């Protein structure tokens, strides 16, 4: 893991008595990192801190090793796609992106070239000539994404990047993000749509009521959730027989039958041992198992377990 561009040490930020961020210590390195949390959990505050719009009350926030607040050197290598849907409505998409390029310090020719390239990247080349007032939600989002990737930044912050895009657009953009991450860029995506986040990345940064609840790789986190043992579901034509065999295993906590009678579900704290046992069940005991799946092995359930506990 090359050095992390973003480092927070005991950073906290209060708006008067209202809690924004409370004593967060973490570091964000290259690749896609998902910033998750309920409304009001501190995601927006974190993003505002990282994009240098506000200062931290205590602790320290370092982007590229510097204090990000109103710091042009940091902004030169940072791209930001805000969640707000406010634009200069009278401008056309191309004018807006061109203006942002020129304000980012590019010359007239360089700005035009980059604008063209970036608009192409988000698939807005043909429609960039129209006024933003007449844009649909998806088109406005693409323009925002375009201006975030203008200066080829090393760190890109995206607040609800896929908001309003249609399924084709969503898939296209997820591929674009993965390509950028593969090149070593640091991408932070704040989103509520968990099944899309799961397609983008495995490493998450979960905030809850201003505090850092979980950070790191998804599967590692799943193992550590004590309170909610792993649920594993086995679809089989003879649930009772399978259940009898399962009860014999020491690490199976409870067994549940599906009323429609075609599957068995049980909970265990050591999924590893069970998965080693499965070949024995199928090959040696010859139990007619159709499928073995884990219903709560996805980000939505993990998110619910973490936030609920």
């Amino acid at each position, binding site marked *: 893991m090359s050095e992390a561009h973003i480092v927070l040490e005991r950073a906290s930020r209060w708006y008067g008595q209202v809690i924004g961020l409370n004593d967060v210590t973490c570091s964000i390195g290259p690749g896609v990192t998902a910033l998750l949390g309920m409304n009001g959990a501190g995601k927006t505050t974190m993003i*505002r801190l990282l*994009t*240098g*719009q*506000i*200062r931290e009350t205590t602790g320290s926030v370092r982007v590229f090793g510097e204090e990000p607040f*109103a710091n*042009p*050197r940091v*902004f*030169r290598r*940072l791209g*930001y796609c*805000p969640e*707000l849907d*406010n*634009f*200069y409505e*009278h401008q056309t998409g191309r004018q807006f992106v061109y*203006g*942002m390029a*020129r*304000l*980012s*310090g*590019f010359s007239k020719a360089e700005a035009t070239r980059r604008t063209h390239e970036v608009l192409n990247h988000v698939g807005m080349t043909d429609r960039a000539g129209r006024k933003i007032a007449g844009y649909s939600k998806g088109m406005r989002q693409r323009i925002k994404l375009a*201006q975030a990737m203008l*200066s080829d930044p090393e760190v890109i912050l995206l607040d609800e990047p896929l908001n309003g895009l249609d399924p084709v657009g969503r898939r296209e953009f997820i591929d674009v993000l993965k390509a950028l991450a593969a090149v070593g860029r640091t991408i932070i995506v704040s989103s509520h749509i968990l099944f899309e986040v799961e397609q983008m990345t495995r490493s998450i940064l979960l905030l809850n009521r201003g505090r850092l609840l979980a950070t790191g790789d998804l599967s590692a986190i799943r193992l550590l959730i004590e309170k909610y043992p792993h649920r594993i579901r086995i679809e089989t034509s003879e649930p009772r027989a399978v259940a009898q065999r399962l009860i014999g295993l020491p690490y199976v906590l409870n067994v549940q039958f599906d009323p429609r009678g075609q599957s068995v579900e049980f909970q265990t704290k050591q999924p590893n041992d069970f998965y080693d046992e499965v070949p024995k069940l199928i090959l040696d005991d010859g139990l007619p198992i159709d499928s073995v799946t884990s219903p709560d092995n996805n980000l939505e359930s993990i998110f619910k377990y973490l936030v609920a506990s």
Partner: protein
Amino acid sequence: METYIYSSMLRELTRFRRIFAWVLIALAGIGMAALCRNLMASGSSSDAYVLLSDAFAFRVLPLAAAILSMAVISQEVEQKTIVYLLTRPIPRWQLILFRSAAAMTVTFAISALTLAVLAASTSLLTSGVFFRDLAAAAVGSAAYVSLFVLVSLIINKSMIVCILFAFVWESTAPLIPGDLYRLTITGYLQGISQHPSVGTGDQDFMASISNVLGAHQATEWVSYLSMAILVAACLAASCYWFSTNEYMAREDS
């Protein structure tokens, strides 16, 4: 890149929808001049010009300055597009300086147009008074814009404050005897434009108003000096304030 900030702001402020109203107001000067000449039975056209320039042109100047200074920062915060400016790799003081400069230019253009219209309709285009008025308008634009930008940074609902200052304080303070006029910008502007007092023929109603307006004024070089200090102080304060404070879209609205 710095010049782009200036030129983009200039283009923004001179958009047809925004500038149209000001052109109308300036052209209204023709009607005002005609009406005024018709009403002032006696008195030369220069009296009409002096009266109108005090009562009309030098009222349009602060109003334009107030509205255009809002567009520098306060309107961006209101429309939540400030985030795009704040996250650009530009030092914040440059943003303030160049955008205010653009606002000053447009304000001066509007007031110069108004003065020109008045001068044209009272055929005084080549007179000394007109050129002195132009200089006063230039200095006035700079002073008013820099002051109102500072006010817009500190107070968030600042439009009303600026307009109250421009119309209530600026009009009454010079009339009050004593040195209150030193606390207003109009006093110094009159010092620069050196308006002659209007002929005291018969106590015509309009003439009496204009005499009272032009009563107190500072000397010319004092006016230039104090205006320069005011502009420098306000801009410096704005730059410092904008660089150290946080500006983000408010959550509630």
